[in-house]
């Protein structure tokens, strides 16, 4: 089997593992994890909300590293990887904000509050929206470089989001503190299975998005080649003004 065949087989396995992990995650969320005493059933949003947030942070960390590598090595593949990771990270952050609101409505009796954790997460969302707006607005040469700079600087908000519940007064629930993870064992196991499922999904989403960016680049190159072949065959002779 050649390397392309091995890669295809590997990714098919990843898809299957992701599907199995999601099924296991759903089972443990609804049939294994106990019902939380204060919040009731709506607390189960936690098992999607937290992994989505953590994987979004990981995505932005990859954007950070890939952006540095792009600026240092100037190889387009790092820009493509940063862009794919940023897009997936932005999608996941959007899901974090929406699931957080859906949890907050019955528990806090409000869709939104300017709590430090929520506010810093919203800022993180705006930073990566700006990342894509910058890419679109700038020229094709400057866009990737400028986006890389924002990808590096923007990542600074990720530790701020994570530490916001320790640095400022917050009503956001605390599960990871300086004393460790504050969860009952069945809840911790359920969260861990969900984390694995979302990490596998993240790998798939970034890979598919990277593939799309690379295909678009190849198509643009082939179109250019096709144009130059066409213009060779049908070159218009210069007018004779003599």
């Amino acid at each position, binding site marked *: 089997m050649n390397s392309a065949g091995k890669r295809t087989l590997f990714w098919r396995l990843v898809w299957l593992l992701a599907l199995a992990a999601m099924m296991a995650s759903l089972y443990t969320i609804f049939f294994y994890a106990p019902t939380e005493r204060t919040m009731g059933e709506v607390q189960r949003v936690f098992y*999607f909300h937290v992994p989505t947030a953590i994987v979004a942070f990981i995505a932005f960390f990859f954007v950070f590293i890939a952006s540095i590598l792009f600026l240092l090595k100037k190889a387009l593949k790092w820009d493509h990887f940063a862009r794919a990771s940023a897009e997936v990270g932005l999608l996941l952050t959007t899901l974090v904000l929406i699931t957080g609101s859906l949890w907050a*409505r019955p528990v806090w009796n409000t869709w939104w509050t300017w709590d430090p954790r929520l506010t810093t997460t919203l800022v993180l969302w705006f930073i990566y929206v700006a990342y894509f707006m910058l890419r679109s607005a700038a020229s094709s040469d400057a866009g990737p470089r400028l986006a890389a700079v924002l990808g590096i600087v923007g990542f600074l908000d990720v530790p701020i989001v994570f530490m916001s519940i320790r640095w400022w007064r917050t009503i956001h629930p605390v599960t990871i503190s300086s004393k460790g993870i504050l969860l009952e064992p069945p809840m911790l196991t359920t969260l861990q299975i969900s984390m694995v499922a979302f990490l596998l999904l993240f790998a798939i989403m970034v890979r598919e998005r990277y593939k799309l960016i690379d295909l678009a680049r190849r198509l643009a190159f082939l179109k250019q080649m096709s144009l130059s*072949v066409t213009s060779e065959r049908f070159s218009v002779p210069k007018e004779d003004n003599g």
Partner: protein
Amino acid sequence: MTNLSYLFAAYAVVWAGIFFYLLAIARKNARLEREIRELEEQLQRADMKR
């Protein structure tokens, strides 16, 4: 809306979000792969005619 309704809505949003994102990418990938194949065939034919 009951608590279970909010729980259902949250899971539906996550599943739908990820599903439609992957579906959109898969469709674009298929379209681009088709266009690339057609262009490569065109360029091969142009090469043979030379």
